[in-house]
């Protein structure tokens, strides 16, 4: 167990070089170093600037619709007969997921740096949509890289991005999912670094991205902490969030780091089961390595090649994870578990039927963990689950599994 001092240190991470203990850092080719240093300087200056903060807060309130509610899922809690489940409703944000908190922030940075073009990588398409949305609003040119496998699974979001004026570039290299989209976005950035701002969609990548994405997403945890105190008079017993690259989870966790009694549980994609090797759970079953600009837990083979992942949910289908999660795991502050495809699908249906809330398949992983944990706990205990996005985009996938064509 980390001590009080350990937690105080953890709260202050990363160091000046972007390291979270042994993880993080800036592992990129030389061409990008200047751009990353510039981004770091711009960010550090603006983040302390009250005017920038006011702009950010204004957009979150009037464009995104914050604060998002904290909802007591009474019927689900009663059915499970244990802990009370509270849902942090990021699904109610404009564009339907937490991703927009970050794209609003990064778009403001892009605006201040004067770059006319933004690029993004996307898996489920939620980050792509959130990027296309802010680009439309600011009149920026926008190109989104997406693995061709995800273009197929998330056709609705692809069309949404096109309607918003973005160009979606289908990536056919490698495993044709999120990691390959990120490779291609990095290649674009190296080539067009003078006029392009790269809006990374999760709390990963080279410093300062893991830090700034976390800071933009930490609004989730700050609101949730306050709402939970206001509604229940105490802090939750545990936080639960799904972990793809880790942005919604770190956004929820970070404001609670020093609340040592609040457990933090990150839920990775167990795919067909950890034992099958067909999953996307680097914290549960990977080893430290270096990919996409940071040192972190990774899924690679014993020769250091990145291995293919599987998850029913495109947004979790990624072999790495944000470095702060690797750190929180190693110091023992956060716990990471895996939920398989079928458990997530069950949770998707159950929350829809019992509460009338259709969660994204990503978020369904967090809901599934809550469904497992609640019955083992007392009725006066609280599980606070981050409902990172809504499930409309996944209806296609679920229907396909049901053998229905919509």
């Amino acid at each position, binding site marked *: 167990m980390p001590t009080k001092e350990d937690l105080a240190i953890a709260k202050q991470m990363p160091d000046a070089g972007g390291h979270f203990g042994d993880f993080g850092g800036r592992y990129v*080719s030389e061409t990008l*170093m200047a*751009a990353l240093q510039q981004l770091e300087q711009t960010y550090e200056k603006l983040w302390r600037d009250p005017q920038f903060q006011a702009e950010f807060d204004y957009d979150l309130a009037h464009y995104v619709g914050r604060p998002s509610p904290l909802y007591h899922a009474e019927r689900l809690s009663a059915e499970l007969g244990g802990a009370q489940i509270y849902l942090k409703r990021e699904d109610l944000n404009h564009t339907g997921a937490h991703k927009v908190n970050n794209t609003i922030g990064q778009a403001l940075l892009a605006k201040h740096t004067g770059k006319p073009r933004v690029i993004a990588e996307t898996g489920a398409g939620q980050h792509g949509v959130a990027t296309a949305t802010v680009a439309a609003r600011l009149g920026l040119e926008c190109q989104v890289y997406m693995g061709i496998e995800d273009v197929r699974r998330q056709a609705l979001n692809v069309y949404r991005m096109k309607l918003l004026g973005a160009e979606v570039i289908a990536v056919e290299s490698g495993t044709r999912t999120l*990691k390959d989209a990120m490779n291609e976005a990095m290649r674009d950035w*190296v080539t067009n670094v003078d006029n392009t701002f790269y809006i990374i969609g999760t709390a990963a990548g080279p410093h300062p991205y893991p830090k700034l994405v976390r800071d933009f997403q930490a609004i989730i945890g700050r609101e949730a902490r306050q709402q939970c105190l206001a509604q229940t008079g105490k802090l939750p017993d545990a936080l639960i969030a799904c972990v793809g690259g880790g942005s919604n989870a770190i956004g929820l966790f970070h404001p609670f780091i020093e609340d040592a009694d609040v457990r933090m549980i990150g839920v990775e994609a167990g795919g067909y089961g950890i034992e099958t090797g067909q999953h996307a759970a680097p914290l549960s079953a990977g080893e430290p*390595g*270096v990919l996409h600009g940071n040192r972190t837990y990774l899924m690679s083979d014993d*020769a*250091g*090649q990145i291995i293919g992942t599987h998850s029913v949910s495109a947004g979790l289908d990624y072999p790495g994870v944000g470095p702060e999660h690797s750190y929180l795991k190693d110091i023992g502050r956060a716990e990471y578990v895996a939920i398989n495809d079928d458990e997530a699908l069950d949770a998707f249906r159950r929350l829809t039927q019992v509460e009338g809330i259709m969660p994204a398949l990503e978020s369904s992983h967090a809901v599934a963990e809550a469904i497992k944990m609640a019955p083992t706990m007392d009725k006066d205990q609280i599980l606070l689950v981050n409902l990172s996005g809504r499930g409309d985009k996944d209806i296609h996938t679920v229907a396909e599994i049901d053998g229905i064509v919509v």
Partner: protein
Amino acid sequence: MSRITECFDKLKSQGRKALIPYVTAGDPGPKVTLPLMHAMVESGADILELGIPFSDPMADGPVIQLACERALLHGTRLVDVLDIVAQFRETDKTTPVVLMGYLNPIEVMGYAVFAEKASAAGVDGVLTVDLPPEEAVEFNQLMKAANIDVIYLLAPTTEEERVKQVCAAGSGYVYYVSVKGVTGSASLNVAEVAEKLEMIRRHTDLPVGVGFGIRDDESARAVSEVADGVIVGSVLVNKIAELSGNQEQIPEAVAAITASMRQAMDK
């Protein structure tokens, strides 16, 4: 003195520039690389850059991405690459060999184990695209102890202050990336490169190799007038791809390209 430094010193005394071809190890088959290395040396290559195949070559364009895929298809691992170098060293004791690749395969092997094995195999230098000097303190120490040069990249975007730091961390030579972009992308502008090299040379005595964007005899010749070394990759890898159905023809066909560049550079 390292083989790399010796090589540049010798060339300098002869008034010549280094020709440095790059190929991906194990592309397209496990048996091609060794005879290809010897053929390139015979045709006038001074230093060989041997790519370590990686599943996610983020700084490479489609040509070298596909080379990695072909090499990985039959499972070329870092240990296999080191094996190829060891075999090469059985008959060639003088030509420097530089491994070029991404960090994760080395990270997974472990820096210390890699340093020991690479040194034993006869590797002279290592260039890790995604390991800038800021993150390389421990790596540098271990490589230095194993007498392996650590070669760093400089880019058009690298500012003067940083050029100093990067050059101070490296040894053997520095590799100037002549264009903003991935390997095999745009053509380079020799005048711009010359200007940048002048600035770089104010901060280091290390030889400067220039790569990215050298596609033919003419660009090789033009770059050799301003740089100490000419690094050529995608053109060769393209030829290898073309002949992947006739692998026995690869050494001769690639050597024909390097021979012609050699001639153009020595004119």
